[in-house]
């Protein structure tokens, strides 16, 4: 199936290159589409910019009502977070929700696609206030969560620590990239080492460098975390439903 798609793609590209570079007449083009019809042209979900329509899951007003735009004080600002800020209100930083919305859409798109391909997703959160919510979210969408103390080698020394060949997650979602106020969560660095893509909610005191799809926003308020959990759960559910539909279609 996959090979057939690639072959089709090459045929399409060959047609366009030929058309733009040559001065040949239109006649040559007309003969080629017949070959395309004989071989089935199927578009994969990756050909669409937003196959799972995750862009409809939220609006900027939803983010605003969930207090996503609140940041910490200027004194704890990480320099790398400056591009994501709208400004500072009497010392308290405000995120630009238009930038946040764009990042969030990309992240939800990636989540849905990884869920569609049957990937393992792991949620991380080290804030005791929201730990229970995150664990429940993971349970409801059938994925995994790790909200407790992180032993050093869980990713980097997995086979030895678990005693058997382990499959690592295909995506790590950090709802809180900090371990405590002073340190970043070790799993951010370890995911980068093990080539696992990461999505992370980065607050104004966090370092977004090692995270593949950072989402600048509030990670301290329970209402904001609740919104993120809901959005990721919906995206994962959509990806999984599409996967079930695809598998059923192929069985028939």
């Amino acid at each position, binding site marked *: 199936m996959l090979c057939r798609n690639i072959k089709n793609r090459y045929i399409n590209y060959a047609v366009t290159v030929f058309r733009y570079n040559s001065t040949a007449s239109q006649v040559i083009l007309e003969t080629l589409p017949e070959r395309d019809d004989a071989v089935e042209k199927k578009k994969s979900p990756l050909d669409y910019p937003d196959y799972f329509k995750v862009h409809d899951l939220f609006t900027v007003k939803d983010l605003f009502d969930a207090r996503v735009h609140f940041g*910490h004080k200027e004194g704890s600002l990480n320099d790398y977070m400056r591009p994501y800020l709208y400004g500072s*209100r009497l010392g308290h930083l405000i995120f630009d929700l238009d930038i946040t919305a764009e990042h969030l859409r990309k992240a939800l798109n990636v989540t849905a696609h990884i869920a569609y391909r049957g990937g393992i997703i792991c949620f991380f959160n080290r804030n005791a206030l929201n730990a229970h919510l995150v664990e429940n979210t993971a349970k409801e969408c059938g994925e995994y969560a790790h909200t407790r103390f992180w032993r050093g080698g869980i990713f980097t020394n997995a086979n030895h620590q678990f005693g058997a060949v382990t499959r690592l997650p295909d995506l790590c979602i950090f709802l809180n990239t900090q371990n405590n106020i002073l340190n970043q969560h070790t799993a951010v660095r370890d995911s980068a080492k093990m080539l696992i893509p990461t999505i992370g909610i980065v607050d104004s005191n966090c370092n977004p460098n090692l995270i593949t799809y950072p989402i600048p926003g509030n990670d301290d308020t329970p209402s904001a975390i609740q919104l993120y959990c809901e959005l990721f759960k919906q995206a994962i559910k959509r990806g999984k439903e599409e996967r079930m539909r695809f598998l059923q279609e192929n069985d028939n």
Partner: protein
Amino acid sequence: MYHARLMLRNANCLSNIIEGAIYRHANLSSLVVKSKNFSSTSDIKTHQENAPLEESERAGGFAKAYEKQSHILDSQENENHTFASLLRNSKLIDLGDPVGKVVIGKIFHVVQDDLYIDFGWKFHCVCTRPTNRGDEYVRGTRVRIQINDLELSSRFLGSSSDLTLLEADCKLLGIVSTPVRTSAKV
């Protein structure tokens, strides 16, 4: 704040409408229910005979106003607000300098004598239970608090970044409403 003003305007208009409606409006059956609190039923009964005559008239000023008022809140929900306008009209900007301002918060967690109060900001604040009416401070109680600091964070000597406590610092002033049903006071 904006919605409160709108509701007040609506209430005033509604009372004006109902006073006028008794004399002119064609469909009185719906209004009878609404105007029960505003006027006596004897007034409505005498003017019901006039209702069929009014139907043929053009829509008067009252009918136009009634149409406008009944849809005035519908358009609000579909508007696409930009982030800049949302922020400009938000409570945070209305607050001004937060130090010393009084806000209303809701208790969302209680640990013996510590009350965790959420007042719509990024952080909650923690206050001790006061001795006066102490039993009424339960989860769901709305309280008045005065803000001292929106985030307890400061830079300590030798560190390059602030250390935050992830908490606001507020003074508890009193109760606004409580879900505890107090026994009848003598």
